[in-house]
């Protein structure tokens, strides 16, 4: 069923990670993702991986949901690591036609696998512990400097939060429409590719119609409550950076520093 997607879902909770300022979380995630792809030896890779595991454990969300989010990308992981495996440089330790495996290739495949897994796990950690509203609020605040060059920051954030708000609604709607068309004998599980694409039409058209109807409804509802864009709006929950936010930013800074030092003093393996 469409509802089984765990990636990007929010799980309410009260852990330290949940309580962190969403701005701090976003900044940390971006910094972490950059540093994750700047690891060139096993020590720094271990350091970044340990950081991810540490945050996952702190988030208090059952590890099985993290595994579930990995399921979605398992194909990409296998594909990229296979490609990397055969693209290494140096002396081949195994060769078959043009396919050759080198120590460098094995290292590369291993690194890319761990990096992608860390990437997904840490992003999941953010979306699992941060509600969509918090997330868009934080993005709006972080992008605020762009207002100086007349970039519509508030509008962008509003569009994002509306889009996120409608994800579950549209999923539910898709489910309902699918059931209704199946009840009329629509066959979605068999036939060749073309047939299956055609079978989507009876689902997509009603879905679009209802999405437009909902968009219209919500626009009317917003106007009824005198929504007039971002200028001068105050918020119910204003964001505050606290002690824990500073501490976690410092921890991340240490990890970044550690990785940079490792890269300087330990030779690269890839």
């Amino acid at each position, binding site marked *: 069923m469409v509802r089984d997607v765990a990636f990007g879902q929010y799980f309410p909770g009260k852990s330290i990670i949940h309580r962190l300022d969403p701005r701090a979380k976003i900044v940390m995630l971006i910094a972490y993702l950059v540093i994750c792809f700047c690891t060139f030896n096993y020590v720094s890779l271990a350091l970044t991986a340990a950081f991810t595991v540490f945050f996952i454990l702190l988030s208090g969300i059952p590890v099985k949901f993290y595994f579930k989010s990995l399921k979605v990308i398992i194909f990409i992981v296998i594909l990229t690591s296979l490609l990397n495996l055969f693209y290494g440089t140096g002396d081949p330790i195994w060769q078959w036609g043009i396919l050759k495996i080198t120590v460098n290739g094995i290292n590369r495949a291993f690194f890319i696998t761990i990096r992608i897994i860390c990437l997904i796990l840490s992003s999941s950690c953010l979306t699992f512990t941060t509600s969509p509203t918090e997330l868009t609020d934080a993005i709006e605040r972080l992008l605020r400097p762009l207002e100086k060059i007349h970039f519509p920051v508030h509008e962008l954030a509003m569009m994002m939060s509306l889009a996120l708000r409608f994800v579950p609604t549209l999923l539910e709607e898709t489910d309902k*429409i699918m059931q209704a068309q199946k009840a009329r004998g629509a066959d979605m599980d068999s036939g060749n590719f073309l047939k299956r694409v055609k079978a989507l039409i009876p689902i997509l058209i009603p879905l679009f119609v209802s999405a437009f109807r909902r968009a219209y409804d919500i626009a009317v509802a917003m106007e009824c409550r005198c929504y007039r864009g971002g200028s001068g709006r105050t918020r119910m929950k204003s964001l505050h950076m606290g002690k824990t936010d500073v501490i976690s930013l410092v921890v991340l800074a240490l990890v970044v520093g550690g990785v940079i030092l490792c890269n300087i003093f330990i030779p690269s393996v890839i």
Partner: protein
Amino acid sequence: MSEILRLENLGFTYGVGTPFEKRAVDDVSLSINKGEFIGVIGHTGSGKSTLVQMLNGLIKPTDGKVILEGEDIWEKPKEIRKVRFKVGMVFQYPEYQLFEEDVYKDISFGPQNMGIIDPLEIDSRVRSAAKFTGLREELLEKSPFDLSGGEKRRAAIAGVIAMDPEILILDEPTAGLDPMGRDVLLSQILQYHKRRQNTILLVSHSMEDIARVADKIMVMNHSHLVMFDSTREVFSHGRELEKIGLRVPQITKIMLELKEKGFNVPDGILTVDEAFEYISRILKKEGKLW
């Protein structure tokens, strides 16, 4: 009367193995005869929608069996689509499933899925389905998105009736219609039932509607089937129905209260005419009438 559908210890649990696990239908066994008009009542979340969706194989039961015309519908999972043609299902707000360029094509979606290719046969099915639901001929050429709310509803119901199912399930077909529209649609369903002589299951929150059309009633409460009996019999248990958050039709309730005050009236009066009969009889006996 011959049996058409039998449920054996039917049960369904949502989200098995997740924190959201919920028992939606528990241990439902019953038998439905050909040609019966059955009302399904129960408050929101009692499991009625899940139950009816199991009848045509849209939801696969986690326990028990659905036996249609003597065969377990899940015996050959690959042929489950055939079951859906025999057991037609009209969902709540079915107008949101319309998608074709014109109403005619939309109604013919079901028959075409059945594998009917003869255009004459399709034409006759579409036209008779439109007639049964009171959809005017000229609307067949229109885009379904240009119809009024009530017309869309009719078109969507016609789309299921065109498959000519042996059993027709309607999930709150009158929800959101105006009183006039409700009455008309309901009498059309009743007429269709009388002419076609098929089995109908009607899920509704309106006890008046159910009292008007149903021969028998299924009462669902907390995922259990608590009553399954003739309409009169079920509505004569007014107090029990109230306990599980349901009502009886207003006229039934008035007669129930008269009875509790000591008047000699029978249980389970369903129509105003009947009630009038009994009350005037009592008044005559006491010499207070005219």
